[in-house]
Every structure is written in structure tokens, then in C-alpha cells.
């Protein structure tokens, strides 16, 4: 019965060791505090138990002592806080060149799509020792993407992207849980993360897909007629999308924002909310017309035309001076 009785979770990501170290530190600190208090309580309780004729000795209190046990815990707490904040910042800052996986959660399944186009359900294959960034959204209620072996958890919200990342360090199969209660089959919304050696992973990846996600996005972009306005020159009614992603964009009301995944997403679904300076709010909303997966594909496409810039060959204009000034002005998905 006791052959399957773990007391410590697998440690299979670059963050796991950092979290465990902090956890062990906290166990030691709180263990010491517990020991101190328990020893004192037990010792006092035994040593000063009621004896006839031995009255209690009255002690009003001691301000130096009070200050001591206020300040010392506070100091310890600050150490914990800073250490844990450093770990948290690492968890929340995806490395720049991470492989991207789009995650769509719904009651009660995980739909995952690699940037290269492979689709999976409740299972995610990733290579060992490579940064993987998850761009996640939900079709219905709040879910939470939780991989205990990676010490990684992030709620997945409807209506926006949340982002998480990990770098698996040990091949194997690990649990994937939904950690935010999401309805009847919440406990059935589980899956696994399969971490593979790079060679195996390449083999798995070559197992056929409909082409990269950005290509799917490009197709949707064309089908929806986006290109009529978002032309690769400055003549379009909408901003040129070349090189936009990841760059600051000036809005009509003067604000500067960064064109991240959430911004591109919002511009597709609620185009009126953040208009790029110099453009008119003429774009219709695509809310309800495109699925979450299609939005993901469009986002991947917008990203791809930024990363490869003019090299996509789609746009000669990007090399022209106006194209550059159009970019400098800040362009946006209209």
C-alpha cells in the first residue's frame, strides 16, 4: 500500500528548485518558531503547574521584550517577502525567445496549440530544457493552469490573455490540473504534460500539422478581409501591422501602450477601445465572429509579421520611408 506514497512532488522545471528552496527555508523558520513556542508552553505548563501555597508571580509585561518580538519577526518576514518576490518575478517574466503555446480552456478541457500548428487536447508535449510560454484564455469561466511538478500555476480568464512560462528540466509525464473551481467536472479537467528529449520532440512535432499557427492566422486575415484596410503601406484606413508587435504604440488620447498579446486581442474584439493616433474608429468588432482559436491564430500572425519584419516579403512598403514613418507613428490592428 505504501509503494505509491510520495511526500514531495516531482521537481521538473527550472523554477521548482527555487520554490522548493524557499519552501524549505520557510519550513525551517516556522519550524523553529513552532519549536520555540511549543517548548516554552510545555516547559512553563509543567514547571509552573499549580502547587499548593506557591502563588503565581505577577509580571505586568515588558516593553523591550514586546519590541523584540515585534521587530525580529518583522525582519524575518521581510527576508521572506523579498526572497519570495524575487522568485515570483521570475515566474511572471517569460523569457523573450520562448516557444509559444496557445491555450484555450473550456468547461472541462484544455485545448493547446503549438505555434508550429500542432493541436492537442488535455496533453502538452514539450521539449526538455527549452522555455515555453503559454498564452492562455478561457472560453467560459475562470480556470487555472496548474502543473505541480513545475510549481507553476496561472488562472485562465475569459475575455483576456494571461501568460505563464516554464522550462522543463526532466523528461517524463506530469500532472496538469485545473486549480480554479470551474463547475461540475472540475476534477475531470486534468491532463498531462509530456516532457521529451529534444530529438524525440522533433520526431513528435514532425507528425503532421496544418502548418504553423501564423499561417493559419494569415489565411483568416485574408478571409476576413483585414488586409483591405491593414495594408502594408500608409494608405490603409487601418494601421500597418508590420513590426508593431512588442513595440510601444501611441493612442489617440495620448497614452502610450505596448502592443502585446492582450492589446492585439482587444483590438480584434473591441476595436473602438484603443485607437491608434491618426486613425479613425471605423473597424467593426469581430466579437462573436471569430473563435478563441482564430483569435489566437490572428495574434500569432500579427506577431509573425513583426518578428520577421520585411522579410515576410508581403510588403515592399516596409522598406520605403513612408512605411518607416508609419511605423514610428505607431500602428495598430484596426
Amino acid at each position: 500500500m505504501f509503494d505509491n506514497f510520495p511526500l514531495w512532488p516531482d521537481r521538473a522545471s527550472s523554477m521548482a528548485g527555487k520554490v522548493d528552496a524557499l519552501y524549505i527555508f520557510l519550513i525551517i523558520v516556522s519550524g523553529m518558531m513552532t519549536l520555540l513556542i511549543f517548548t516554552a508552553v510545555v516547559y512553563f505548563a509543567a514547571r509552573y503547574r499549580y502547587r499548593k501555597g506557591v502563588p503565581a508571580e505577577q509580571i505586568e509585561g515588558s516593553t523591550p521584550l514586546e519590541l523584540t518580538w515585534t521587530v525580529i519577526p518583522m525582519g524575518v518576514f521581510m527576508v521572506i517577502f523579498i526572497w519570495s518576490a524575487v522568485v515570483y518575478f521570475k515566474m511572471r517574466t517569460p523569457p523573450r525567445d520562448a516557444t509559444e503555446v496557445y491555450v484555450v480552456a473550456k468547461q472541462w478541457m484544455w485545448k493547446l496549440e503549438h505555434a508550429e500548428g500542432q493541436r492537442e487536447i488535455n496533453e502538452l508535449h514539450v521539449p526538455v530544457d527549452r522555455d515555453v510560454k503559454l498564452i492562455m484564455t478561457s472560453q467560459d469561466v475562470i480556470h487555472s493552469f496548474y502543473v505541480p511538478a513545475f510549481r507553476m500555476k496561472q488562472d485562465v480568464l475569459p475575455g483576456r490573455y494571461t501568460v505563464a512560462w516554464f522550462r522543463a528540466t526532466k523528461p517524463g509525464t506530469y500532472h496538469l490540473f485545473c486549480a480554479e473551481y470551474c463547475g461540475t467536472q472540475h476534477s475531470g479537467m486534468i491532463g498531462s504534460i509530456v516532457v521529451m528529449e529534444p530529438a524525440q520532440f522533433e520526431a513528435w512535432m514532425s507528425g503532421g500539422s496544418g502548418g504553423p499557427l501564423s499561417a493559419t492566422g494569415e489565411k483568416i486575415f485574408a478571409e476576413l478581409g483585414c488586409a483591405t484596410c491593414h495594408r502594408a503601406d500608409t494608405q490603409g484606413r487601418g494601421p500597418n501591422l508590420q513590426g508593431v508587435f512588442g513595440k510601444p504604440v501611441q493612442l489617440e488620447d495620448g497614452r502610450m501602450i505596448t502592443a502585446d498579446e492582450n492589446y492585439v486581442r482587444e483590438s480584434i474584439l473591441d476595436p473602438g477601445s484603443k485607437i491608434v493616433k491618426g486613425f479613425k474608429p471605423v473597424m467593426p468588432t469581430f466579437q462573436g465572429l471569430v473563435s478563441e482559436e482564430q483569435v489566437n491564430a490572428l495574434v500569432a500572425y500579427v506577431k509573425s509579421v513583426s518578428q520577421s519584419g520585411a522579410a515576410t516579403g508581403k510588403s515592399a512598403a516596409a522598406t520605403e520611408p513612408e512605411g518607416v514613418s508609419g511605423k514610428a507613428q505607431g500602428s495598430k490592428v484596426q
Partner: protein
Amino acid sequence: MSTHSTSEHSKSPLTTYFAVWAALLLGTWLTYQASLLDLGRYNSAVALIIATTKALLVALFFMHLKGASEKLLKLVVVSTLFFLILLMALAMFDYGTRWFS
């Protein structure tokens, strides 16, 4: 027994009451007029400053917070507002910084 409260009102407070009333009406008119001016981002600030002034007038004079014999009532008001502002400020802080991450 009830002397302090009656002595408090022994000098006729009517002048104060009518003055406050007039000030409140004036404040309402000012709020409306100010909203018609283009003050840019200061429109909301002006509106809130006038509203707070009016609320203070009501609280201090109509609700007799000013004449209250003890600091206790003022403490109640101040601490309630403290927690209210806390709720708004900390929640807004999340919204204000969310898009930078």
C-alpha cells in the same frame, strides 16, 4: 442632563442653517456650470471637490458633526472614509498597473 445639547443650540442656529442651504444650492449650480466648461482632465476633480465641500457642509452643520461634544463621532467618520478610500485605492492600484506586466 441634556444641558449641553440645548445650550449648543441656544444661540439661534437659523442663520447658519439658511446660509448652509444657500451654499448648497449655489454648489449645485456651480457643479452644473463647471461641467459645461472644458477643463480637460480637471472636470472630474472640480466636480468631486464641489461635491465633497457640499457633503462636508451637510455633515458639519446639518448633522452637527461640528458641534459634537466628543471626538468620537469624527473618528467614526474619518475611519470609515479611510477604509472606503483604502478599498478604492488598492483596487484601483491593481487596475492601474495591470497593463504594464
